[in-house]
């Protein structure tokens, strides 16, 4: 945790309210996101209990599995989910922009970075879930459905799933995987969004509880719009409550029936709810009693609705922040990601493999590391509060220009290399000859080289570029005495490293080329899945 975050948290403890960590919004928010609040069944991995899903705040679609251990009902749920999610996801596929032929295309996959015109979707669908556990659940649903077969694809398949379920799995997998790229906004978890922009006085683990997190940020906790509280006593807390007390109330306040006022944001359910309410209702359902299914639907809805409202409320809070200047550029990378997967689906490519091969894994890691470095730089440049954190950490310094001394490089054609002395109260970790960077108007970056400390707090920087081609620097390209400048020790748009080999050129050190090359056929995928042979039988197996 950085010093400024520690400071913000300490301040939150002292004031009893969340402290802002940002002055602008650092993630893209779609005008029409799809909110998905899933619930899972305790003790049964990957068995959904229900979900609220939709793009309209007042009209969530309730999906419920009355008996999650019945796999037919499970796939009926997934089929219903596909009917909501896929039309939304596919709704963005056809409206495209044409990218002109260019050499450096922001965020485009390597195959499209250079060359002729290319199309990118004008907008992309955005999925919002309550917390990171729900994002993991999206991955799990994707994993459990993308390899399934439908009767249309294969009449022989022993356990066909409803149409479009495998396609849902592929999209959920793509969104789940993309969410691991720092700064991406295709799939966002509300708790992560909120903790990026506010610091509370509780631990990271406690911040995973959406209700508690909102309690800190949003005192007093407002009643969910248009929905009566789940239980009497679940309404807004009395005024004057501290964040910690409000969070405690949101986390563990229970009514006379023993149920939580604010159920957990899922996907796990409250055990008391499971045992005292849900289990008897399911028993009645199993016995075939009339009205039992409706009762379960009502119960599941009662657990989901507060979280649904909390997610939308979180969106309100975030929308109140202005968007950071470089957010749109990152969203463009997300649009490329969406377009890329749209193309793979259209081309009839098989679902994403169960495991990445060596080259794909290295490619993803490299891409995410570059994204992380770009994100860290962009957030600092977009937001003085984030930059303050970097300055406090010795990774940037700001101050007033005290002196500019014109100097020139040696060589046949002398180039301007002015020396700028900056008076700063910051304490940057500057190495001799270390590179420093400064943002110029129009999004350009000027590079400098640290020369020396000319006195306490007086850093001398030699400008090395961004001054045009002539002997005299272009106007406004060199700061003047009295200007405020901010230099960073980190690059503003770091590039990735060298390219990786093609998978078929995987070297011997990494096991050679993958055994089953990516043929565009499901048979190959199935063959790959059965590649893992069982462990050999040992003597201990017969004990």
């Amino acid at each position, binding site marked *: 945790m950085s010093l400024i975050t520690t400071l913000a948290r300490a301040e939150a403890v002292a004031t009893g309210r969340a402290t802002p960590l940002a002055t602008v919004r650092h993630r893209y928010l779609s005008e029409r996101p799809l909110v998905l609040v899933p619930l899972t069944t305790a003790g049964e991995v990957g068995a959904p209990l229900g979900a609220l899903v939709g793009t309209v705040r007042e009209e969530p679609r309730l999906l419920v599995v009355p008996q999650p251990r019945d796999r037919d009902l499970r796939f009926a749920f997934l089929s219903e989910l596909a009917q909501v999610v896929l039309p939304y996801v596919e709704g963005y596929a056809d409206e495209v922009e044409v990218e002109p032929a260019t050499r450096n295309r922001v965020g485009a996959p390597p195959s499209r970075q250079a060359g002729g015109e290319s199309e990118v979707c004008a907008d992309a669908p955005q999925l919002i879930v309550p917390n990171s556990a729900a994002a993991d659940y999206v991955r799990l649903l994707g994993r459990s459905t993308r390899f399934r077969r439908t009767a249309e694809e294969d009449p022989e398949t022993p356990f066909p799933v409803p149409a479009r379920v495998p396609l849902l799995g592929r999209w959920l997998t793509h969104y789940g995987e993309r969410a*691991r790229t*720092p700064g991406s906004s295709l799939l966002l978890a509300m708790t992560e969004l909120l903790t990026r922009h506010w610091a509370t006085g509780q631990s990271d683990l406690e911040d995973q509880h959406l209700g508690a997190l909102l309690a800190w940020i949003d005192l007093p906790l407002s009643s969910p719009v248009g929905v009566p509280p789940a239980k009497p006593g679940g309404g807004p807390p009395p005024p004057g409550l501290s964040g910690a007390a409000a969070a405690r109330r949101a986390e563990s306040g229970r009514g006379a029936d023993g149920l939580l006022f604010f159920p957990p944001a899922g996907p796990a359910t409250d055990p008391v709810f499971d045992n005292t309410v849900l289990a008897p209702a399911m028993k009645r359902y199993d016995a075939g009693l009339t009205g039992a299914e409706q009762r379960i639907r009502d119960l599941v809805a009662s657990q989901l609705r507060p979280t649904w409202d909390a997610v939308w409320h979180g969106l309100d809070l975030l929308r109140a922040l202005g968007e950071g200047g470089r957010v749109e550029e990152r969203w463009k990378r997300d649009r490329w990601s969406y377009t890329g997967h749209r193309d793979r689906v259209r081309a009839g490519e098989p679902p994403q493999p169960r*495991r*990445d*091969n*060596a*080259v794909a*894994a*290295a490619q*993803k*890691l*490299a891409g*995410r*590391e570059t*994204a*992380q*470095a770009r994100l860290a730089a962009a957030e600092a440049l977009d937001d003085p509060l984030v930059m303050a954190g970097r300055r406090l*950490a*010795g990774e940037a310094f700001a101050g007033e220009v005290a002196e500019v001394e014109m100097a020139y490089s040696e060589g046949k054609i002398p180039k301007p290399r002015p020396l700028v002395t900056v008076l700063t109260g910051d*304490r940057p*970790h500057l190495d001799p000859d270390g590179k420093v960077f400064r943002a110029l108007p129009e999004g350009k970056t000027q590079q400098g080289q640290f020369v020396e400390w000319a006195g306490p707090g007086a850093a001398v920087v030699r400008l090395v570029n961004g001054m045009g081609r002539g002997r005299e620097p272009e106007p406004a390209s060199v700061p003047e005495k009295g200007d405020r400048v901010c230099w960073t020790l980190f690059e503003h748009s770091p590039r990735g*490293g*060298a*390219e*990786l*080999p093609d998978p078929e*050129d*995987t*070297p*011997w*050190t*990494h*096991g*050679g080329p993958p055994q089953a090359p990516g043929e565009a056929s499901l048979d190959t995928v199935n063959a790959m899945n059965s590649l893992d042979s069982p462990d050999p039988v040992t003597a201990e197996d017969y004990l």
Partner: protein
Amino acid sequence: MTTAAGEAAAAATERILHDTLYGTARGVVVDSPPGAGKSTLVVRAARELVAAGESLMVVAQTNAQVDDLADRLATADPELPIGRLHGSDSLPDPVLDGHPSVMKSTKAGDLAQQKVVVATAAKWAFVKDVEPWRHAIVDEAYQMRSDALLQVAGLFERALFVGDPGQLDPFSVVGADQWAGLSYDPSASAVVTLLAHNPGLPQHRLPVSWRLPASAAPLVSDAFYPYTPFRSGTGPEDRRLYFGVPSDGSGPDRVLDEAAASGWGLLELPARHTPRTDPEAVRAVALVVRRLLDRGGVAVSERGTSPLTADRVAVGTAHRDQAAAVRAALAEVGVSGVAVDTANRLQGREFDVTVVLHPLSGRPDATAFHLETGRLCVLASRHRHACIVVCRAGVAELLDEHPSTEPVQLGVTVKFPDGWEANHAVLAHLAEHAVRWRP
């Protein structure tokens, strides 16, 4: 120097060179504890391969390592045509200008005639469309990430991998858990991936540390290399450190005397939770260094007798801001020329005396970062004579309150010892050389 140690080391080197020159395996792995002559081995292997009519590429991890290797190669054999491949914005160390046999270029094609071409892994990754080298030497292979090896392994047919398994593992700034347990986990070390896919490769070990004194080798070997022990190349009488100016009785002087006599010293400050740049501890480090230089230290070793000067002293910390704070404190007491850096940057370097700000000093918690075995191992194994640790009291209790809780991943080889245990082992040893001091 003990003859038995010399013979053991020579025999190990012969076996390694034999496997490299005449073996049939595509790779040879050499584990080298701190100061065991890894660089010497690399230079010798390179020269023998060239003598056998081969040309080879050498992969190291940082520009400083590459420059150092090129310098050593050129010094050992001024006739050897060496190529130094470098990036356009990272010029090689000017020290290479002194070697006419070293040719520098940013393009591999320019260096095709050189018998040995040296570059960082990151630079090699950009080399495309060249005839693969028959041989390669990969230096600091345990600090190289698996994905970096993936980028360069197509450039050579066979390779000698040399490195120290006890030092800091490579890391990633983003999560890589989704690949944990895969044989080619891109965030794992290159050697782990290499051996997972080629389990039959010959593995060797350099058995003797020439750097660590007899007082340090047993501790470092037991604490960090419990299953692959090594010994010191020198006996207890071969290295001595003494001061011309007697102790003034202060804490720093007493800990210096303890360290001079036993090779280890712990300056223990009163227990307290502090920010990372604990001003008292930082000042204590600066004072110890000041006194170390003021007291006219003399180091006697198998290399001869030499005065202890600032360039033979280093200060090691866990974090960069701590290093910056120590530098500022040293400047205040008028000390210059002492290397002050983090464990990551001190890797591979050697000094007579090191002063270490303990990674867990003053902390309220023990995170995986601060517990990492390699971090402590690097800090405790840079010295030829003595190591002085400055630390707040209470680290043993802190460790007991924070047992390792890293999740166990299927398919990932558990690394022994874990940082928790290694920290306890070192702490228990240091406790015998503790000087309690209230600044």
